[in-house]
């Protein structure tokens, strides 16, 4: 089997909104596929189709070679899902949530309790095991949610924006868990709005926008396309912005643009930034400030599509409802 997840020409519309407009995706077994895109891009719909929760209008989606539309039952035997909205019973304790899932999956009472306790230890929830999940903090709820999707170790795990709204420490903890699952052989499809997250975890990335894959490849390839990093130059005198952009283009051939009076230069690596700085220095243009940072999703989008990411759009769940 070449792909653990294989999606071809997937289409799904809700009313006159094309949530998926011909999406192709592929993930080799034991790898992480990052699906990167803003709100409303179709990420959640793609995850829902792959986890058998939404029927596609056209196209095929296969998980472990099984068609999600015609072999949904078999697909459900092998997948785990952490949706964007916590898939937990808020009235049950963390432990009860995990025991319920294990019981539904066929564990005996004793087996279910043993597995729940094991996961509670590993996901650092021992202090809150008997508290109602509805009273958990955002980070704890995410951890419990992830624990719930690995009660029976899935062959393919779907994570829909697993770290949205989490503090950096909780986020790093979740990344660690995902890495360990992958090391144990699980294939993961993860949606995210953060390029950094896709970069950290994914073996391959698909960038989607308005229901279409607009770029795909390894993180390195993608960064090459969009410029690995972003150099931001703020001129001391606002009217020097045009000159700075020109200098950047001479120095490394990069297409710079202006934003809020600052000049944004995509660079492949730190050396290119250095070359730009040398040229600016030689030309004697005064800078109020400068910085080198990872491109944001917005910058990736601007680079790939020429328009900004619709980060203000309504969450997709509203659309699907």
């Amino acid at each position, binding site marked *: 089997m070449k792909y653990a997840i294989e999606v071809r020409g997937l289409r799904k519309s809700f009313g006159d909104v094309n949530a998926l407009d011909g999406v192709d995706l592929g993930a080799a077994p034991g790898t992480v596929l990052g699906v990167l895109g803003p709100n409303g891009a179709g990420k959640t719909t793609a995850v829902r189709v792959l986890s058998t929760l939404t029927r596609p209008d056209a196209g095929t989606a296969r998980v472990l070679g099984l068609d999600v539309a015609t072999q949904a039952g078999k697909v459900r035997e092998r997948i785990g*899902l952490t949706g964007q909205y916590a898939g937990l019973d808020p009235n049950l304790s963390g432990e009860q949530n995990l025991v319920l899932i294990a019981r*539904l999956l*066929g564990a005996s009472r004793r087996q279910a309790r043993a597995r729940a306790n094991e996961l509670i230890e590993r996901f650092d929830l021992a202090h809150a095991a008997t508290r109602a999940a509805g009273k958990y903090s955002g980070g704890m709820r995410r951890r419990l949610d992830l624990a719930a999707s690995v009660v029976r170790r899935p062959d393919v795990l779907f994570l829909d924006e697993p770290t949205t709204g989490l503090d950096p420490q909780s986020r790093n903890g979740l990344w660690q868990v995902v890495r360990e699952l992958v090391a144990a052989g699980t294939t993961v499809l993860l949606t995210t709005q953060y390029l950094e997250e896709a970069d950290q975890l994914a073996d391959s990335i698909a960038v989607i926008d308005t229901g279409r894959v607009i770029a795909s490849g390894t993180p390195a390839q993608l960064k090459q396309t969009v410029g690995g990093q972003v150099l931001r130059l703020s001129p001391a005198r606002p009217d020097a912005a045009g000159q700075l952009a020109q200098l950047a283009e001479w120095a490394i051939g990069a297409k710079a643009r202006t934003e809020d009076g600052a000049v944004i230069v995509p660079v492949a690596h730190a050396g290119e930034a250095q070359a730009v700085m040398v040229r600016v220095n030689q030309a004697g243009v005064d800078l109020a400030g400068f910085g080198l940072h990872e491109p944001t999703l917005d910058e990736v989008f601007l680079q790939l599509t020429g328009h900004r990411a619709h980060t203000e759009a309504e969450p997709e769940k509203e659309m699907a409802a």
Partner: protein
Amino acid sequence: MSAMNTAATETTWTTKRGTLAQSASMAARSLASIKHYPAQLVDFFMIPLMILLSITFFMGGQMMGSWQDFLQYAGPTIIAMGLFFAVTSTGLGLYGDIKEGVFDRLTAMPVSRFSLLAGRVAADLVKYAWALLVVGGVAFAIGYRAEGGVLGTAAAAGVLLLFLFAASWSMVLVGLTAKSEEQIQTWMISLLMPLAYTSTIFVEIDTLPGAVQWWAELNPLTALADSMRVFLDGGTPGGEVWALLGWCAAILAVFVPLSLRAYRRKLTN
């Protein structure tokens, strides 16, 4: 988060647990919240209790001369009506369940759809049984006596719970298709109440206006009220019990498949 080796425990459980066992797990889940919010135990019987007490004491005397006579005639069936109104909670509970993400997870698991719905119905049935015990106890305390004795009372409770089980399934469909909680409440007022008032819950059939009589004969709540009375009064069960069983079978035959279809539409759209 400490280091994790997810392969430590065997997680491919071989025990085959069928639909009934899965339903039981789901029922236990619905009931588990009582542990965190024990005040619910009071909520379950408050409405039927208040309906019984207010109707008996404020209206009973006027309807039958003395409230004691009224209690003896209509007490058990008014309890039945209060519990019948309470089936709305099945719809509301399911509506709430689906709003939470938990049903997305459960739907993406290899669990029978029937179990996910039947678990809620079964849990609610336990709540109705509890409410019946409490409110029935109050009726006994204020003077109700069943001529049919313990056996007759048990049989009456049995047919009531059977009917509530069937009626809950109609609320499952409502919970799955309602657009809002208010809509479910409206359903209760506009559908369940007229149904109750055109039956023999309160009154004997010949006291109803002629046009309503033919419907009252047919009304499933008449079948329920008459069946309960025949058992409680120690009579010989006959046509009314068959009518009730027929109604329960018909309600289930219609609403279980419709609910499953609504579930598919709602959760795997």
